[in-house]
């Protein structure tokens, strides 16, 4: 590594995790607020460092690349983690393990960034573990029934996917004689096809688990529904960003030379994710479970970038969409956090009671559909164009049909917001200022990034 400063954001996050753990241990239980302050300050510093680092030319050695993808993922992940920390700030401050929550979030975020930056399978495997293990603890954080069930599910599936990832790494090492992406890209075309195929599929399985894509998506709805709301927001948003960037890296740099049909595999995975996620979301009555399935379908749209790996627009489209997706998803979860609601019906008459929250939710949900001028619209548009450019016109049509289908269940949530409240539902009466703020900010980012898409895309 030529310049250790180019890894400053990662260093800040790692040090902040350690610092928060130490500070939390030496702080009385009722004054854990200072840990949160430290974490917020560290995340802001990391964000500043990430933005500053983005100005530097791309660099990389020793299995870790710092390029546009890494920069964009860093900014998205750090901002998403910051939003999560703020979402959690509304829950009673005297939670006995508040500092652990922050430490685990920071470590998972660090692992996610590392996933995106890795250009060596071993680094990727280490990043996978770092991004996964804290999540198991986070999901079961509340120690309640649903949380424990979700934690067990995500743990078992995650362990399986991790082993597959390591197996795949070993197979590809055997096939290519190296674990570095650049070396693999050269060596794999000459290696036995069965070996390369098996190894690559195993690696993809591990990453698909993190991305929450079909066929390893079963944990997503359970986590979204069962975990504490801020954790659900974090787990369905942040790790996905790194995993999809890693998938894109593999699809763009490593796999294309080895066999001609990788694009088709990615396209089928994308189509399956968006379709199954949508179908499962149709009749959900629980808001968070619906969001969980919606993230599965969003992962499908995002996988279009991997399918269209070679296309010029794939990378900017993916990175823009990732940011847009993170904003919309965090915004929708923030509304749920602020209200403490469970079912869609609980949101009846929200527009009258809390107009700003309702409007934010509408912006985020219609954003998911890709209604202009939200950011997801621009992301979707660019990925559609990239798919067409890569000769995957059918995938574009499938994605469009799915977009239409998804409208149905998002509208099932939007409609009650504007109907008159017959009985005061199960909504918390508390103000929840931080969650409300995050929701409004996320909606504003979603709209603003869509309108100012030009300058943002120019950076990607």
């Amino acid at each position, binding site marked *: 590594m030529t310049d250790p400063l180019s890894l400053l954001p990662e260093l800040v996050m790692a040090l902040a995790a350690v610092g928060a753990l130490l500070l939390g241990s030496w702080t009385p239980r009722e004054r854990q607020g200072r840990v949160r302050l430290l974490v917020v300050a560290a995340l802001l510093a990391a964000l500043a460092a990430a933005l500053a680092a983005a100005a530097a030319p791309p660099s990389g050695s020793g299995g870790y690349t710092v390029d546009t993808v890494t920069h964009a993922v860093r900014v998205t992940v750090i901002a998403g983690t910051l939003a999560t920390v703020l979402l959690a700030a509304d829950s009673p401050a005297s939670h006995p393990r508040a500092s652990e929550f922050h430490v685990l979030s920071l470590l998972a975020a660090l692992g996610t960034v590392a996933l995106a930056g890795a250009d060596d399978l071993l680094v990727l495997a280490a990043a996978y573990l770092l991004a996964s293990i804290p999540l198991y603890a986070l999901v079961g954080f509340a120690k309640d029934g649903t949380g424990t069930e979700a934690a067990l599910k995500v743990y078992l599936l995650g362990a399986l996917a991790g082993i597959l990832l390591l197996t795949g790494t070993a197979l590809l090492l055997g096939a290519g004689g190296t674990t570095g992406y650049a070396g693999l890209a050269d060596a794999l075309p000459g290696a036995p096809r069965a070996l390369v195929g098996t190894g690559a599929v195993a690696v993809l399985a591990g990453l698909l688990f993190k991305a929450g894509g079909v066929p390893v998506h079963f944990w997503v709805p359970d986590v979204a529904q069962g975990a504490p709301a801020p954790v659900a927001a974090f787990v369905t948003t942040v790790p996905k960003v790194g995993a999809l960037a890693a998938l894109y890296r593999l699809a763009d740099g490593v796999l294309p030379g080895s066999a001609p049909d990788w694009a088709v595999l990615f396209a089928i995975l994308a189509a399956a994710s968006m379709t199954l996620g949508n179908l499962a979301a149709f009749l959900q009555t629980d808001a968070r479970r619906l969001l969980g399935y919606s993230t599965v379908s969003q992962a499908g749209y995002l996988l279009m970038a991997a399918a269209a790996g070679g296309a010029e627009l794939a990378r900017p489209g993916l990175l823009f969409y990732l940011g847009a997706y993170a904003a919309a998803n965090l915004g929708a979860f923030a509304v749920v956090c602020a209200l403490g609601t469970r079912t869609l019906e609980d949101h009846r008459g929200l527009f009258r009671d809390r107009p700003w929250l309702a409007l934010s939710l509408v912006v985020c949900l219609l954003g998911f559909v890709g209604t202009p001028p939200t950011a997801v619209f621009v992301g979707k548009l660019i990925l559609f164009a990239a798919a067409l450019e890569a000769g995957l016109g059918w995938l574009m049509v499938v994605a469009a049909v799915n977009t239409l289908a998804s409208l149905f269940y998002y509208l099932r949530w939007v409609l009650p917001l504007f109907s008159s409240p017959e009985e005061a539902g199960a909504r918390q009466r508390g103000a929840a200022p931080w969650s409300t703020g995050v929701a409004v900010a996320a909606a504003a980012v979603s709209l603003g990034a869509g309108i100012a898409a*030009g300058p943002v895309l*120019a950076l990607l």
Partner: protein
Amino acid sequence: MLSVVVFLPLLTGLALLALPRPRDTVVAWTWVGAAALDLVLVLGLWAAYPSAVRAPGVGGSGPAYEERLLWIPSVGASYHVGADGISLPLMAMTSVLFLACAVYSLHQRRRARAHAVLFLFLQTVSLGVFSALDLLLFFVFFDLSIVGMYFVIAGWGHGRPARSALQFFLYTFLGSLALLLGFIGLYAASDPRTFDMVELAEQTPLAGGGAAAGLVLLAVGTGLAVKTPTVPFHTWLPPAHTDAPAAGSAILAGVLLKMGTYGFVRIAMPVLPGAWREYAMVAVVVGVVSVLYGALVALAQTDFKRMVAYTSVNHMGYVLLGLGAAGLATRQQADAASLAVTGAVTQMVSHGLLTGALFLLAGVLRARGDSYDMGSYGGLAAGAPRFAALAAVAAFGSLGLPGLSGFIAEFQIFAGSLGAVPVPTALALLGVLVTAALLLRALQRLFLGGPGPLTPRVGDLSLRETAAIAPLLALSVLIGLTPRFLLDLIAPAADAVAALVSG
């Protein structure tokens, strides 16, 4: 300047939102003021248009008041607006209709502020569609119009508004997605890649024809046909109209439907002239089927508002017939082709005014008697002479009586189409006959004869209602008697479009 016109309503709406608890009258009059100011500005643009057209190209019909700002440079999309002889009349019609709705809604008491803000939002969106010169910008406004109308129907509708609104959203969103796919297809075929309509019209991508051109035209055409709507994509229209509030219906039929037909003239024909020529017969057939089917189904209705909704399908069919005929015209028939296109654009303006008036009148009927059922009324002319008079003018205009705008439009469409497609034109003429029959029958059922059970509840129009509806009909008469001021604006632009697709 054009951007000011487009965004003035939205800014007013945001200002209304920012006010802390404004009184309903303040909201209502601010809305009327903004709509009136916007209309004045559009008329100013119209008046200055001849001098604003830059270096006249073919027929001197280039867009004026152009503004261009890069939006997403990596895909060649920009905020590009402009106005020409096709868009200006529609923008003026839009402003007039929104002003009428503002006046009509002066007594809105149910969530008045949200109502006003939504309509102001819809006005910006509609003006945006008619001034957009970039496919992506067009799509943004096109799509947002669906969102806005969804909330109008869901929030202020009657009957089963939630269900109708959902159906409306899903169905028209399907259309807009097809449109988006077509736009992406155009983008992928262009070189250098762009979403700009003016550049695309110069490049005419896919000019070689083939499957790609056909597919793109199919996607764009389907998207626009859903919005227009033509048979067989019209099934969302009747429930949406039946359950929408009066002002919402007027905007939906008067303005939003025009986005579909406008898209044909603005995008499908200039950008894909070759494919349009090749498949023009499809447009003609769809147009004629819409004319006849819309008229016959309207004939069978007993619900006044549903009947008016079906006549919209019929009237939009004429537009498609004219546009299709222009594509089939030979080089010798270039004059006829431009006559047909002029007629089609005139029909859009005329239908906006007349149908807007009819839907507002239907709203009056419902406000009084709580029903649209024509059988429940009768002999209204005795107690409500002004109501009867305005309804009669609107109906006569709609059936194409000379002296009103509908005649000018339909006459031009028929005269322009007869040479190129004589048999379909003759069939479409039958549609006029059916329309005349059904509108006259509706007038007779409502206003003549003995009183029905609900007749006593129907008093005459209030000043507010008259002030909203009468100007629309006055404009229709004005166009019917002195059409030159409108035709002189449309004709050069229509000539240019017709020259692209004929021969």
